């Protein structure tokens, strides 16, 4: 488990949903976010897994 801290706000990131847009479509994914400034963190696992699958599905839609 990663211990993630927003450098600007010096607070720990918390789990929150983030909206992603691609080719005119929107999807919502569970991410880590700074509760103060909203800075987002996405893991490579999420990017190469769920997000890539969604991108490819939307490419082909």
């Amino acid at each position, binding site marked *: 488990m990663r211990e993630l*801290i927003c450098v600007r706000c010096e607070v720990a990131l918390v789990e929150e949903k983030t909206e992603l847009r691609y080719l005119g479509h929107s999807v919502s994914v569970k991410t880590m976010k700074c509760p103060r400034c909203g*800075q*987002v963190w996405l893991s490579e696992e999420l990017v190469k897994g769920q997000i890539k699958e969604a991108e490819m599905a939307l490419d*082909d*839609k």
Partner: protein
Amino acid sequence: MTLQGKSWAVMSSISRENRKAYEYFAGTCVHGALPSCSAFCPLNLDMREIVGHVQEGDFTAAYKAYRVKAVFPEIVASVCDEPCKAGCVRKELDQSVSLRRLERACVDFARVKSIPSFNLPPKKGKIIVVGAGLSGLTCAVRLASKSHPVTLYEKSDRIGGRLWDLMDAGVFLPSIMAQLDATACAVRLETQVTCLSDMEHDVVVVATGEGGNTWGLLDGIDPQSFGTEQSGVFVIGNIRGTTPVEDIAQGRIAAFSVEKYLKVGAMDGMPETFRQTHSPLVMDLSRVESGGAVVPKSGEVYDEQEAVAEACRCLLCDCTICAEGCEFFDAVRKMPRQLVSDAVASLNTRSNCGVTRAISSCNLCGLCGKICPQGIDMGQFCSDFRVFKREDGLLPPVFHQFFLDDMRSANEEAYLARPAPTYEQARYVFFPGCQLGASDPRHVESTYHRLLQRISDMGLILGCCGAPAEWAGEIGLRDSVMEGLTAEWERFGRPEFVFACPTCKLQFERHLPDISGVSLYTFLLDAGLSGREESDVHGDSAGREDPGVLGPVGQSAACVFDPCSSRNDKSMQESVRRIAREFGIRLAELTYSGERAQCCGWGGHMAVANLKLQDMIARNRAAACPLPYITYCANCQEVFARCGKASRHILDIVLGLENQEQRPSSLGRRRKNRMIAKRAVLEKEWGVGVVGSGDTSAHEGGRGTLPVAIPQDLLAKMYDELILEDDVYRTIDYCESTGDVVYDASHDLYIGHLRSGVVTYWVEYAKSDQGLVLRNVFFHRMEIVESRSDASVPTSESLIRSDGTP
């Protein structure tokens, strides 16, 4: 006249302005067409499917496929006189496949033979069939199985007609009864029909057999639908002289004709059900091993193993020439007709339906068009459809963004167009193309120097021909690049172009036919410049000895890997071979070379749309021959270097360049190489020093921050994923300068992201006293909808300061 069946070449109405006409693009494709054996069969049995099942030992599936047209499999397997044998292509090689014995094996070894019933609602229209021989029975059971009310009349006291004289009733009666029992067909035995008009009916099928009553209907019978001149009356079977198998074929076709008549009142039948007697397939047997038919141990019928062995002799004739030459068709799981059909359908729905990825997975190399017996060039189709999809806003920009950026870089900061030193105009212009210098700047620098020694007014243009724009469906952008090159041509006094890159040469030939051009390799030969010159030799490999992977003089052997864009350029292909031979290299030919050259995988820029396919193609090309390759396209050379395939660019050999490292340079290094080439020629030939050359990759030190180190393993990953070093530096710069970064305390890493064009880059890096070390980098295309409290969303554009400098 419709366009269907006309070849692409004569279909002048197919142009980008007439999208609908593309429906006929693969109209002449013969993939899936009737094989010759089936064309000889009166039933047009689908032998490819039937024998395919037997090859797998699935006799039940084979039996079911057989019954679709045979109707009474047990009867056909017994009375068939095997006309298919005359059609089997193996007869030229050894012996025809024993299809009747295989059919018999289907009957003998099928585990399940039950006849499915579909519980269809009863249909209107009373049908009478006169005569319960094979043709009448077939027609009756086919119509009854579709819930038509059918009454079958037979004047004698038994069904089967002439079968009683031909085979064992213990075989044919159960077969017929099984079909009759599965339907509600009424049978009236010992009922002589004397006058058709006396009977209440909507349709009559006359199948009275040899010497039977004709009621004067024989004149004017449609030979395909079996309709007579009298509306609602059909005539089939041995009344007109048929074999038993033809009886079944006619009964089945007539059943379809009757159905059409009942629906729309037409007597002309359903063309797709008519008997076909021609197979358009032409099979190449040159690589087929010969060996006679399997002889059954029992003397007459096969056991299961024998049947499978004999089935395996069948070539399952079909045309798959395009798929044998190119992995594309298997990868997208569509043969030409299917791809065309899906692509055209997707134009109407303005959706992708997977089509965009398919058309973006093609190398656009034209091999399929060259080897297809019908000349169907799916590369042309995919190229045109990329334009359509882009026009419709359905081509994902990310598919080509990297390559368009690369083209822009080649045509901006790395661009150079100069007449030779002290000249205003030129008779010739050397145009190396954007990839030659990126791959190895010495190829540009040394070649130009050599050319200048002999041709003092040889000009130079370093830039891109616009092919990446064409491959991205950006025709307007390609044309603007070519307009720029045309303007330079005019400025230089209309010189002849000397092309190092076969793709550039092809693009000029296609789109700028007024500009004459020659390949560098032909030019070097003609000018006597193709030999090794002392002044050009780099390293210790002086003389004619090849220093690299090809081995010592006189013992070296190699294959010339013709680039796909040289397909129609025999002169270029032959020049490269002549040069190689002059260096004592013995040449072997690849199976696919010359006009059948296969693409190395780079063509068409499929890397983003289908990296898996690109990798597979590259590996397959590298493995096509164990000998080293001689290339003359910088992209082919790059692809083979990345695969670890021993290969040399022909210019390495001509110029005596040391063997390049097999490990590929990074993407950033490629852009940097272009700048190095530009700087080198400017300094060497024009004595011009270059300051602030726009070398955007020279960032190892970071921009006023700590240096950023990128480990080798990450450079390799970045190459695969088309991430430039600059993308990394820019993202880290952003993180460091804004503080928009997350600290991973458990790994002591800093993580941040930056939107750049159509992708978002993520970097993970560590900090030390010596500087920054990249630990990971990746990207996604989706855009994060951020709701930061300061409302600043990181994009590369936000890094541009008010004075316009990054």
